[in-house]
């Protein structure tokens, strides 16, 4: 490779990091919910969509600046997640197939609900002018907003890791994950742990949604575009935080490099084939935890 070829290739690697961060922040809420609570949350895409609409609504009706919309959409969607967990999911913890159907139903309800309230025409989130340009450092060129997404993803990963591995709550979560009955017999309120984790996972999806609304579009159906990637990352990663980080990094980079070498459509095809082959040999993903069967 000559130096002329290296620059675009290196640029593809930088872009890969950005794609990875987008897929990771889409998947992180799902990772927590799936890894901890064991619920395959089909409504994850709609939590993302709700986050985008929350930002849109707060911005256009209350005039909240974009950067404040991010934490606000976390809170709002976490509350929605909490309500859904209390009203529906908690009755189904021992019936994994039913949670699958129930959350799918929830996703349809949320999609149609948003359509009834906001209509089906696309909405738009305004961002500060500084986010609408790019930075060039030597060979690499990336938009400021992609850097913002990478930064926020890193923060979210760090905060989640801290919450689950450095706090009392995190220890309780891990205890419940390993053995719910045993943890309960030591006085841990498993019900409450599930409720909190589900709400946090939903909130993180909401946060991701308000970022995606800026990158792409705000529509009632926008979530479906991200939920496939999110599931992919969780399945390849094995349902742990570290696994999701590694899986998102790997798949994001591969997608970018394949797309650079061939084209976008073929890159996706190649990536999915590789994932299927990978899962054939490692069905539990990159970093699967040993856990008691629930």
């Amino acid at each position, binding site marked *: 490779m000559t130096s002329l070829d290296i620059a*675009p290739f290196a*640029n*593809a690697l930088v*872009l890969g990091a*950005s*794609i990875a961060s*987008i897929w990771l922040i889409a998947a992180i809420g799902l990772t927590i919910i799936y890894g901890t609570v064991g619920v395959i949350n089909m409504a994850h895409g709609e939590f993302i969509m709700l986050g985008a609409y929350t930002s849109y609504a707060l911005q256009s009706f209350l005039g909240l600046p974009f950067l404040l919309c991010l934490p606000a959409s976390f809170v709002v969607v976490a509350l929605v997640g909490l309500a859904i967990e209390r009203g529906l999911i908690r009755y189904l913890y021992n019936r994994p197939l039913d949670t699958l159907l129930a959350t799918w139903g929830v996703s349809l309800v949320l999609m*149609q609900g948003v*359509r009834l309230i906001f*209509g*089906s*025409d*696309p*909405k*738009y989130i*305004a961002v500060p002018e500084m*986010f*609408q*340009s*790019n930075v*060039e450092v030597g060979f690499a*060129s*990336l*938009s*400021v*907003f*992609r850097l913002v997404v990478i930064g926020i993803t890193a923060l979210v990963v760090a905060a989640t890791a801290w919450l689950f591995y450095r706090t009392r709550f995190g220890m309780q979560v891990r205890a419940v994950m390993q053995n719910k009955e045993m943890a309960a017999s030591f006085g841990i309120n498993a019900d409450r742990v599930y409720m909190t984790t589900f709400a946090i996972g939903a909130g993180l999806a909401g946060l991701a949604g308000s970022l*995606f609304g*800026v*990158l*792409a*579009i705000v*529509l009632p*159906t*926008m979530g*479906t*575009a991200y939920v496939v990637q999110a599931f992919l990352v969780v399945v390849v990663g094995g349902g742990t935080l570290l696994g999701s980080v590694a899986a998102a990094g790997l798949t994001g980079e591969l*997608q*970018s490099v394949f*797309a*650079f070498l061939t*084209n*976008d*459509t073929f*890159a*996706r095809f190649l990536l999915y084939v590789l994932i299927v082959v990978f899962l054939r040999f490692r069905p539990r993903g990159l970093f699967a935890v040993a856990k008691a069967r629930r």
Partner: protein
Amino acid sequence: MDLTRRNLLKRSSLAAAAIAAPHLWLPTAREAWGATLKKGEPIKVGLLFSLTGQLAVPEEDSTLVMQYAIDEINKNGGIAGHPIQPVIVDAKSDFNVYSEKAKELIIREKVIALFGCYTSASRKAILPVVMSQNSLLYYPTCYEGAECTQNTICTGPLANQHSKDLIPYMVKNFGKKVFFVGSNYVWPKESNKNAKIWLQEAGGELLGEEYIPLGSSEFGPVLGKIRDAKPNFIFSTVVGASDIAFHKQFKQEGFKVDAMPIASLTTGEIETKAMGPEFGAGHFLSAPYFQTLDNPTNQKFVESFLKSKYGKNGSTHYNMEETYLSAYVFKAGLEAAIKKTGNIEEVTSRMIRDVSGGVRVEDNVSPEGLIWIDGDNFNTWLKPKIGQCQADGSFKVVSQAAEHVAPDPYSIYPNAGKCTAAGLVAPDGKSRKNVI
């Protein structure tokens, strides 16, 4: 019913009677094909668009503007004194549902014509039904061509009309080098085949051609390739939500619209509103219609549509205008058929189509100016226009075809033959009906 001897006897005697006297049981061919117009009764038409799902964004507007057009026609006395009655169904963005609902509308509701679809995929899903029932479909938007059926009328531009002026205009004003980006399905690919011909004629140079999966919102890799290729302009056939992501990321990645504008076949008023006008400003669109077209008919159309209960989205879009025209093409066709037979009860769907060749919508009705239906392939003669998006998201017309451009569904497939009213005539003289 139990299979007893008595029942069996009863049934077989019934069957025998049916065979003996077929005229008692079988409807005549005309009735079977749903000739449903009755003197003094409303004219039923089907509106087959998606009101939910991915396609709801454009198709909900199509439904609204059709209802508006029907209201307007009814207010002015209907067609030959008969009001039009729309039967509205939701195709749910699902191609199976399109086909089911088409069947339901034609057979059960006995509509005389269908207005529907926004994508080639859904059109191809319902065409077998429409053709087998000898019904009539008004396809009210742009498509790629390469079809020759005896049961469709299209009021949007074909691929051969769409980019004919746009490519030379861009080459002349911005430079020879171009990069093609499109969504990965049939219409962008066929449109790009046409665009390549215009590009060659204009002396342009194609630097690259990339397709993005439908619905994808990740344009990083494609924009990276465009950055390396350094074209003078981008020719885009990206559609839907992807198109909005494309324009946003174009600006976010530091591309400058003055140095490398996007020339699109789809990015209209609704798209620029959805992405925020600052992302659309400066780019180009080729379409037969823009909301800002400066003529009294259009001003009246925009004003009264936006004031009506159907105008809540706040814009009139080329797709909506083409849909609006289809109602008037239907009106003119039905009037011609009634004139021919002298009796509304004898009019069939197929007859309306057959007399629609040459039907005109004059510029006191058509917001885009005079159009007429081709007598061979039943697509529309129209004047493509080029608009540049302004800071407020509206479009300024910068160029307009001097003459009407003929629709030619097989312009890039001369070996396939010529589409005529009776079917596709191959170069060896063989004629085939209903080619899709």
